[in-house]
């Protein structure tokens, strides 16, 4: 197994956290993993991305160029991600903020109104978890149970946060399953 996943969006959308969850879950599953963030002098409002490489072998390159799976949280991300996707890859698009459609036909696309679904859950900040659910359901790079285990680990003190995150995650899973 060798997956290269990209997550991108506005600062503040929880992009890095999604990547982190993917990475930790992979580690839990005994895989090699690299998590690489974008970092910059850019302040909030700039575009933020990260990439996660998950593999059964020792990982070389820290960067990825052709994602096998990706999440586009905002319009700017989609513009960058669409042409980069590896043929056959899965692209999750946050429909709440991205009005446009993907034109490539050699990749799989899941449109998920992540922010709207999050708002339905009563916390519009968990859109990122919704897209993560959508991603791992469409392309099982890690199991949702690993992700949940990781969250239990990372957010032990905040039971409420944990709960809403889990619900957002399964909402995302359900969305992909239902589509």
């Amino acid at each position, binding site marked *: 197994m060798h997956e290269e996943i990209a997550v991108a969006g506005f600062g503040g959308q929880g992009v890095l956290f999604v990547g982190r969850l993917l990475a930790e879950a992979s580690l839990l599953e005994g895989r090699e993993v690299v998590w690489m963030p974008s970092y910059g*002098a*850019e*302040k*909030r*409002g*700039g575009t933020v991305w990260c990439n996660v490489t998950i593999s059964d072998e020792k990982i070389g390159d820290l960067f990825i160029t052709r994602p096998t799976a990706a999440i586009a949280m905002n319009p700017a991300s989609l513009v960058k991600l669409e042409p980069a996707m590896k043929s056959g890859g899965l692209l999750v698009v946050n429909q709440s903020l991205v009005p446009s459609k993907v034109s490539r036909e050699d990749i799989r696309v899941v449109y998920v109104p992540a922010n709207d679904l999050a708002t339905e859950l009563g916390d519009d900040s968990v859109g990122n978890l919704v897209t993560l659910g959508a991603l791992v359901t469409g392309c099982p790079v890690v199991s949702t149970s690993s992700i949940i285990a990781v969250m239990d680990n990372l957010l032990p003190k905040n039971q409420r946060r944990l709960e809403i995150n889990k619900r957002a995650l399964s909402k995302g899973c359900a969305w992909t399953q239902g589509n």
Partner: protein
Amino acid sequence: MTKFSISELDTVLYHRPESLEDYPFHFCPGCGHGIVFRLIAEIVDELNIKERAVCVACVGCSVNSYHYFNFDGLESAHGRAPAVATAIKRCHPHLVPFTYQGDGDLAAIGTAEIVHACARGENITTIFVNNAVYGMTGGQMAPTTLVGMYSTSTPGGRKPSLSGYPIRVCEMLSTLDGTAYVARVSVHNPAAVRKTKQAIKLAFRTQLANLGMSLVEVLSPCPVNWRLEPVKALEWLVKHMLPQYPLGEFKVIEAVAALKKGDRLCTKK
């Protein structure tokens, strides 16, 4: 209720100054830097020195200064802006260089350069933006961070026994004979911003009159690294920074006082 286009007949009460490029700031929402930049641009417009002004940028969130102003500008290495400005002024006395420096830049790594520009009485102007934190690098303690204040490098709040005391820059620099005008102002509300503008303007006029070093310290919010909403950040500034950093003029040599007096007479009209 219908849209309309602005008639040229309408009086402009406030408009973006000409000396500011039509280019968005990269600052975070509610950052005080934007206010100070704008004031400088207004003053350059009003003093009609766009052709002589030189922005000597520092390294910090204002690193890009020269991109925003519509006149000559240049980068300087972290902390060294006063040295760069000194050279420019000495080489071209008709130019009006000013440094724009953060508190990390001016009061930490650049301490020697600002002290000596002041001691030499260089005919330059320094706008010193004190936001009590290293903004650009992610909110570490600055020399001006308050006692007890959280930063990413004082996880339990600044403890003097570990990290010392905040430096009051104006108080320190006004002990130097080369300083002509030293003042501390703030941007916590519109009235304060207006005073800030007056002070910065006087600083530039001090330079234009060849009276020596002029420095204005501006207390300014860094909402992101203070971890406060912008409006709350201003409240915090008033509550916590003003007591440690009292506003006022710390050095006004006679010739500058005369300039100021002239001002007052003028504005009376």
